């Protein structure tokens, strides 16, 4: 069994549902989605018009599911989708789309273009037209448990380190805990401070929580490459672990697509409802803050701003929570232009960061983030997605900008009331 054009076409035919048919038929070709797309605004190349990225799927829909399309195809006036065409579209569907959802928001007739790009990727991967980097990441996610090759051994080393740093116990595989924390591979590998941070916060707030040895990795490359089959496999581990530990909540980490996978796509992927609820770490922290279980006693005077991860604001609606938290510790917090629901993507979401071929384009379109940052002249950039964080660090360095980047959870943990007693030494 291997990938082929026919397999891709069959997959696309299965993917074209009533919403897709409605969106294609109601598109008024106004081009507003172009102006909303980072890749168009920064390059001015019309091929990056979001709806254009779906052209092969649109034609397939027309030829297979509409009266006039069938007729045109029959008399040879509408050419069939070819393997070469899909190959040509691969960079448009993967390199120049971060599934950021800005186009869906801009569409005046309400077409969810992002939803369609996600579906288009199903056909692309089935026809063998997915980027090598993303294929490698997905393969590692399935075979080794993590796209970045992080395994239980790595996690245990980081847990040990955090326990030493905080003097607290990091719970692992505690059955019957209220919350099960999931991490992203970038957090385990590059930002392990998050483990100490949540340990200290949950200790102060008296939250009953645990990590799971068989379900700690939240990053879902299956969603990014666009394969529901593989995404379900990856997600299944978390669901299984949560069911095994009988937790009430699963906490999504500071990772955009992990949140989308867990919170929005999850039950559809596994085909049944969850026996638990999913909450983003920032949502939980804000809940703890409003119920006065999370207390801070110091502030950071640095002029700082917040980068909204696309999956949190646009796909998830988590907009006010990070700001409530920031208000508590950052008196010199400033908003970037277009902050909140209209914030611009870091450029590396939706699998673009794992796709080496896309790197040059990703760095080019960072110009938008650069100008957003320059407008506020902040010294510290806070965000709540580890992938955004890596992309931002990368872009800032290449542009020689003197701005620090930090995760929101860590920032909050740094100002906890019992900060001093929590630290071992």
């Amino acid at each position, binding site marked *: *069994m291997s990938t082929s054009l026919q397999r891709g076409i069959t997959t696309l035919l299965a993917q074209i549902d009533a919403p897709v048919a409605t969106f294609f038929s109601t598109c008024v070709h106004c081009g507003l989605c172009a102006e909303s797309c980072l890749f168009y605004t920064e390059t001015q190349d019309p091929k990056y018009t979001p709806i254009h990225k779906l052209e092969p799927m649109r034609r397939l829909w027309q030829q297979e599911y509409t009266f006039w399309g069938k007729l045109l195809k029959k008399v040879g006036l509408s050419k069939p989708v070819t393997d070469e065409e899909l190959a040509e579209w691969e960079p448009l569907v993967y390199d120049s789309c971060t599934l950021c959802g800005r186009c869906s928001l801009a569409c005046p007739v309400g077409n969810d273009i992002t939803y369609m790009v996600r579906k288009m990727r199903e056909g692309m991967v*089935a026809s063998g037209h997915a980027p090598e980097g993303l294929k490698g990441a997905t393969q590692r996610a399935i075979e080794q448990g993590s796209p970045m090759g992080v395994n239980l051994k790595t996690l245990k080393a980081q847990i040990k380190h955090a326990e030493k740093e905080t003097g607290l116990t990091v719970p692992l595989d505690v059955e019957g805990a209220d919350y099960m924390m999931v991490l992203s591979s970038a957090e385990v590998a590059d930002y392990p401070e998050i483990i100490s941070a949540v340990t200290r916060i949950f200790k102060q707030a008296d939250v009953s929580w645990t990590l799971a040895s068989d379900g700690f990795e939240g990053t879902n490359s299956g969603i990014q490459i666009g394969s529901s089959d593989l995404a379900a496999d990856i997600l299944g581990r978390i669901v299984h672990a949560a069911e095994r530990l009988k937790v009430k909540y699963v906490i999504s980490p500071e990772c955009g697509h992990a949140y989308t996978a867990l919170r929005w796509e999850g039950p559809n992927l596994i085909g049944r409802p969850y026996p638990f609820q999913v909450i983003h770490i920032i949502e939980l922290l804000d809940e703890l803050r409003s119920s006065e279980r999370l207390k801070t006693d110091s502030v950071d005077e640095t002029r700082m701003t917040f980068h909204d991860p696309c999956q949190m604001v646009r796909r998830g609606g988590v907009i006010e929570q990070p700001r409530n938290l920031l208000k508590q510790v950052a008196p010199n917090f400033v908003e970037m232009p277009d902050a909140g629901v209209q914030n611009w993507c870091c450029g590396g979401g939706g699998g673009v960061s794992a796709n080496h071929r896309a790197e040059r384009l990703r760095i080019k379109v960072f110009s938008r983030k650069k100008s957003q940052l320059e407008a506020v002249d902040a010294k510290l950039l806070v965000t709540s997605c580890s992938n955004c964080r890596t992309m931002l660090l990368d872009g800032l360095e290449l542009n020689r900008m003197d701005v620090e980047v930090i995760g929101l959870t860590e920032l909050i943990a740094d100002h906890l009331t019992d900060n001093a007693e929590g630290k071992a030494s």
Partner: protein
Amino acid sequence: MKEHETLEQRLHEQGVSRRSFLKFCAAMATMMALPPGSATAIAAVLAKVKRPSVIWLSFQECTGCTESLTRSHSPTLESLIFDMVSLDYHHTLQAASGHAAEQAREDAMKEFHGQYLLLVDGSIPLKDGGVYSTIAGRTNLDMLQEAAEGAAAIVAVGSCAAFGGLPNAQPNPTGAVAVSDIIKDKPIINISGCPPIPAVITGVLAHYLTFGALPALDDQGRPKAFYGETIHDRCYRRPFYDQGKFAKTFDDEGARNGWCLYELGCKGPTTHNACATTKWNGGAGFPIEAGHGCLGCSEPKFWDVGSFYTPLPAPAADVTAFAQAAALAGAAAAVVLSTADRAKQRRAQRTRQKLTVSDLKGE
């Protein structure tokens, strides 16, 4: 001949304020459905432009078109037309007469060869060597051909110049034809109507001066901005038509209630013009508001399509039953087709092979 001064100087001399001028430009931009910013563009260009030479030839006509323009609610924005152009020849309006008048025309043609605008009202008789209408001993045909040769563009003002009009109506004893039947090698813009709306001709001239080109035209050579929609489409009585409320005579209850005049022969549905929106006499109204149907005067052959009081042909049979059957058949076809499509999608979902990690490696 004196140097043509700019429009701004000319307006200033005549005591027209800049405010009135800008209002005029905004009105022009609005009427021609141009983007909002173009009012300032029009103002900037018009203020600086050298007033072009205009030669106005009147052939088989009734002077109604000139009257429409000059008698329009004064002082008006439309009257500015005469400030926008240097009217070098117009045998009704000019002071000179006889040889002096013809001399003025010849001088303008020579001096502004290839640049002047030629405005024509009235049709041109061709029968019997064109003897039915002559000026200074020359036939209209001869004069038109001579003047057209050096014109930048020709504006056919009124239905006679645009389509032949009344002189062309059956049995057409003089063999009258439209300008476009004779001149084939110049841009011609038809401003039809009997008479045409004054603002339309002003708008076209403003467009020509601002952009250096004629506006977009419809298949009858008329500017789309003014002739793009029918009287019926923009008629204030249209809701009554949609509700099936018609006046049956000119003095019945329906007529008093202002119902639709379709059955009294209104030609609104087939007539393209801007009367219903631009209106007449300083916005006072248009024929339908006075209780009379549209005559269709801006359409070709409007004299020859039957009585002004004969209703436009409507479907003779009751179409309701047919429409219902067609709707049912369409709905049935849609159900059949969409069921087939659904089956196709389900088949694809069934036959689709599950993607595995070996597929990723298999490349």
